């Protein structure tokens, strides 16, 4: 039986919120540095989406890894795959409209869902050079939808406007330790879909760098006992927590 502590663990709330956004049968991709998406996809396949097609940057399809790696381009993610594609194949799939959902992140994410993974300050001579967006500039406009995730939620991360847009495009949802945002296609801005039970409207307003309308925003349902049991099975070492370290 799940304890209240397990049900209110921010990492478990985030990974279940990400998992619930995935649909059975869709083709889903993650790249490098993506432990939470890796676990969320495996969790979805173990619960409500057994026929989801799991594609990742190693080129494996529907792997059944016995050990989850810290690096999400590790050969551990090859175990159990019956086919191997290349990264170029995965990009081509996205280019021709065949990739349903991609997971991406941003060091900064703005009110319109644009991400900055490149630089803080003048990009030519930055104050802080960031790692770069890897596949994001191409995948954001080509994948049918993108789910963003970020384990930090503060006014420097969620900003009104990024100073440099590494990429922008078909953002559908953004999952953070405080809430789930959805992008309203009519106004093109992030709006709060639900507030996690561990947060509050006051905290969310204080820690977001753009204006929010929280009227009537529901509470994110906490992880169910079934979800927590499946999470323990697919991720016994707790890789969904390492981004919080």
């Amino acid at each position, binding site marked *: 039986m799940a304890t209240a502590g397990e049900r209110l663990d921010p990492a478990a709330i985030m990974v279940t919120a990400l998992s619930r956004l995935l649909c059975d049968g869709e083709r889903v991709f993650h790249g490098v540095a993506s432990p939470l998406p890796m676990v969320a996809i495996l969790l979805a396949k173990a619960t409500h989406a057994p026929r989801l097609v799991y594609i990742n940057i190693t080129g494996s399809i529907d792997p059944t890894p016995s050990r989850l790696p810290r*690096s999400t*381009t590790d050969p551990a993610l090859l175990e159990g795959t019956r086919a191997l594609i290349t990264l170029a194949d995965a990009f081509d799939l996205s*280019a021709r409209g065949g990739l349903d959902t991609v997971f991406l992140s941003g060091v900064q994410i703005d009110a319109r869902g644009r991400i900055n993974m490149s630089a803080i300050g003048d990009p030519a*001579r930055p104050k802080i*050079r*960031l790692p770069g967006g890897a596949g994001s500039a191409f995948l954001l406009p080509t994948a049918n939808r993108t789910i963003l995730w970020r384990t930090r939620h503060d006014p420097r991360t969620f900003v009104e406007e990024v100073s440099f847009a590494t990429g*922008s495009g078909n953002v559908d949802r953004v999952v953070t330790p405080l809430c789930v945002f959805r992008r309203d296609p009519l106004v093109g801005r992030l709006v709060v879909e639900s507030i996690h039970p561990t947060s509050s409207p006051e905290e969310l307003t204080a820690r977001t760098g753009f204006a929010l309308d929280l009227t009537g925003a529901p509470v994110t349902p906490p992880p169910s006992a079934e979800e927590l049991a499946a999470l323990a099975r697919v991720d016994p070492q707790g890789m969904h927590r390492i981004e919080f370290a």
Partner: protein
Amino acid sequence: MSKVISLAAAIAAIPDGSSIALGGNTLHRSPSAAVHELIRQDRRELTLIKTAGAYDIDVLCGAGCVARLVVAYVGFENLRGMALRFRSAIETGQVQLEEHTCASVIAGLRAAVQGIPFMPLAGMTGTDLASGRFHAVANPYGEGEVITIPAIRPDWAIVHVQEADGEGNARILGTTFEDALIARAARHVLVTCEKLVSGADLARRPELTTIPGFQVDAVVEAPGGAWPASCAGYYDIDEAAIARYYELAAQATPERIRAFIGEQAGAGQRVTVGAR
């Protein structure tokens, strides 16, 4: 004819100012032994090309070997975090960065592979990476326009593979990453391998030979040659070594970097075997 030579001789053939595409991805099948030899021979003014790099790009930046980077990501993923020497090299202006997205690196390499000056690429809208750099052309056959990426033609491709024969036929186990592409796009190819195998061995499963020998200039047997990165079927990431490197990278000196890369010797014997 055998192309097997020493690592020192292979790297001596790569002059200062060369552009080099590195094989592997982040901390997997990086051509680390060759990277370390570039540092030992104090190669300068290099341009490095890769979709997603980590230790390899960082240590070359730290050793002062690099003038320019053509990359989409440099970082230690969730093992550590930001690549400290890469970051410092860009922030101080020591290294010039041509920031890409992985798909545009691949598109540029594909143009070189096909012998054409540029490659059209889908998407690339809504990104400041394209501004003023990647030009759109009108579709000559119908409506609309498409972004193009100029050809990326490296002087050298350096790949570390599991098995190769003396003529350079190279077999990659597991993910090939962009190794097959860079080996076709580059003017010259250096293959380092865990193990030299016979041509007869490769002839039993020729479909597993990702890089044909006729494209390869030199072959070096380098057991443990990806260390501290992983090499699928041979060994996992040496996380303890990555942790030691990351600490020294915070206050890197040429002496400390040389001491660290000296640990490569014997890495082939010491490394733990993972998914073999």
